[in-house]
């Protein structure tokens, strides 16, 4: 690192850990190919944001399919939507929003170097994530019981709205709604499972003291991931549960 940028800049508050010519003092988290800790942090952060872009494109394909089919088969989608459990969906939304708050608090705790607090918030986040998954599991169970899972045993008959008016429903189109419901929420749940594993690992590492105010990039980046998964649910909840209620 015989580089002019190694001179401590305004961003390097931890001057002792800035690389010196002979590396006697070396931040153990600083990888060899970066000039300084700030460059490494910026790179990791940009990399995470780009990864989130790919996630948006990934879910975008399904949102696109949902939009097209909702316009094409509106009645079936409305009827299908009314079969979803709005209470469980709302609880899960609340759980996720709270978990996003605990993530923010965890990042803050890492920033000020409170190890136990950081570990605590990470653990609470994992617990909230698991709560979400358990509630989702009960919802899926209900779908199985009501034969609303696409496949040979799918069964969906005409429904009546709140005023007792019969809504004619094409069962195949309703099956398409539930196909998309399972594809979208299932893919989201998969991301939640990955997130729980990620935060569990981070909690262990945080407890062991891997993170300090000079280095907590993994906490920040995992937090970005968690928020994105959260935001995807914030879109899924109204699209699947809410907007067709009062058609």
């Amino acid at each position, binding site marked *: *690192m*015989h*580089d*002019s*940028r190694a001179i401590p800049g305004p961003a390097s508050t931890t001057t002792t850990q800035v690389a010196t*010519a*002979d*590396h006697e003092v070396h931040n153990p988290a600083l*990888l*060899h*190919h*970066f*000039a300084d800790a700030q*460059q490494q942090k*910026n*790179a990791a952060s*940009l*990399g995470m944001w*780009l*990864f989130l*872009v*790919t*996630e948006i*494109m*990934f*879910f*975008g*394909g*399904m949102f*696109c*399919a949902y939009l*097209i*089919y909702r316009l*094409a*088969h509106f009645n*079936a989608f409305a009827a299908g939507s009314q079969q979803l459990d709005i209470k469980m969906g709302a609880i899960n939304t609340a759980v996720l929003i709270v978990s996003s708050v605990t993530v923010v608090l965890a990042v803050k705790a890492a920033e000020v170097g409170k190890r136990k607090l950081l570990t605590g918030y990470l653990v609470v986040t994992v617990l909230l994530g698991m709560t979400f998954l358990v509630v989702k599991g009960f919802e899926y169970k209900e779908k199985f019981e009501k034969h609303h899972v*696409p*496949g*040979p045993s799918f069964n969906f008959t005409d429904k009546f709205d709140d005023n007792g008016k019969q809504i004619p429903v*094409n069962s*195949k*189109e309703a*099956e*398409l709604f539930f*196909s*998309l419901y*399972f*594809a979208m929420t299932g*893919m989201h749940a998969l991301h939640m499972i990955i997130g729980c594993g990620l935060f569990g690992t981070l909690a262990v590492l945080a407890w062991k003291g891997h993170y300090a105010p000079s280095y907590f990039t993994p906490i920040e980046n995992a937090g970005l991931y968690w928020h994105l998964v959260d935001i995807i649910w914030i879109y899924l909840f109204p699209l699947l549960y809410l907007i067709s209620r009062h058609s």
Partner: protein
Amino acid sequence: MATKAASPVIPVNQTPKLNYLNNGHGLKSWLLTTDHKRIALLYLVSVSIFFFIGGIFAMLIRLELLTPEGDLLSADNYNKAFTQHGMIMVFFFLIPVVPAVLGNFLVPLMIGAKDLAFPRINLLSWYLYITAGILFLHCMLNGGVDTGWTFYSPFSTEYTNTNIVEAGIAVFIAGFSSIFTGLNFIVTVHRMRAPGMTWDRLPLFIWANYATSLIMILGTPVIAITIVLVAVERLFHLGIFDPRLGGDPLLFQHLFWFYSHPAVYIMILPSMGVISELIACFARKRIFGYKFVAISSMAIAVFGFLVWAHHMFVAGISLYAAMIFSFLSFSVGVPSAVKVFNWTATLYKASITYATPMLYAFGFIGLFTIGGLTGLMLATIGIDVHVTDTYFVVAHFHYVMVGGVLMGYLGGLHFWWPKITGRMYPEGWAKLSALFVFVGFNLTFFPQFILGYLGMPRRYWQYPPEFQVLNVLSTAGASILAVGYLLPMIYLLWSLRYGPIADANPWNAAGLEWKTSSPPPTFNFDETPVVTWEAYNYDEIPEKELEAPVAR
């Protein structure tokens, strides 16, 4: 940087100098490396193997079409042959070839970085690629896939008995390999540039790879989710693309081409970047209109996302949508033409050296122009309806994919071979093989334009006897082309041991990669370079005897 040297000056005259090739031996030092240059070589070997396998299928196709009757392959096996050919060449060769081999090697060197931003993710992306490749080969050996590389629904989701799901998973994993490569390049270009390496001093190869990476991270996730949907439809009989269940097979085509048309630019853009480097070096001039060439790469990346439905003019989309997509497809011609005109303008009154890489660059310009102009013909709705699914389309995209991408890749591989290996290739053999490639390529694919215009459809294993002469010409050309590709495989391997030793800058070229030794040390530069000059400052580089390093 584990050296304990107190002074930044590292003695240069140690023989042999420690470089990335002799720094560590044994299989483990390669399979667990995080050095971008070694990963580039891992990719070089693996894409070459896949090119070879894809080439065998190409030869099977050409041999079958030698006669009008279906004599060599059965109809089913012919379907499988062109599907394996297409899938291997697209997903396991063309998409990774230039970014993952040349890009991996050169991006950090060209911007003066020690490595890519995420070396371990870089290695992971190679392992994903290999996993996908092995999975695909396993699928191939167990009967293969017969849907064509586009695996259109409902054939892929409903009717075919071949193992679509396994092939799909392979493509899905390979997609993540390319997402990680793209992500790595973007972060590296943003965050790892050497002091003084501003955006308007970046080599055009970097601009091209940056634009490519944008397409990779924006497009590839969409094909990933499309494959997931095809797989769940096939496995669980969901009705996402099945019209009997309320689905829409056109949606599959939209989602598929939303990635797969931009994927064409993933393939061609890095090669265009290579050509910019070659032309500037062997014309000894700054590239004409540097900024326009750089911006045209970005423009191609952006416009490339807006043209996908020109693959669907006969699929039943609305006429107005078709007209808009036709117009937008024409607009991609503008940045592409900007590149071609600027390359030729660079050649004007230049002192040109006809070294092998430059021959490939000339080949690229000619063939890409033909491929691009026939692309404009296909963007015209009337002509497209006439020649849809004929050999005209086949010839068009082979002119772009093979005439473009492969010419750029081979040119670049020869150009940077001394940097990669520290040895020169044999110039005479290389020129001969460049000639074989050019002649063989044109003989293979030009007759296919005529065949297609006369109405020979693609993907049939038999054809009426009046098409035989042109098909025989095409097969003969393919044999010459095969020799043209086999020759470099032989003499490049030969040069590893017997080639003349190359110095740091055998071409007297501009660019940071030539300012470090050949082969470069593990961390690329003994000292982080500080850039104070513009890209392609050839007027500031003193002339040197260019023939010297090529002497045998």
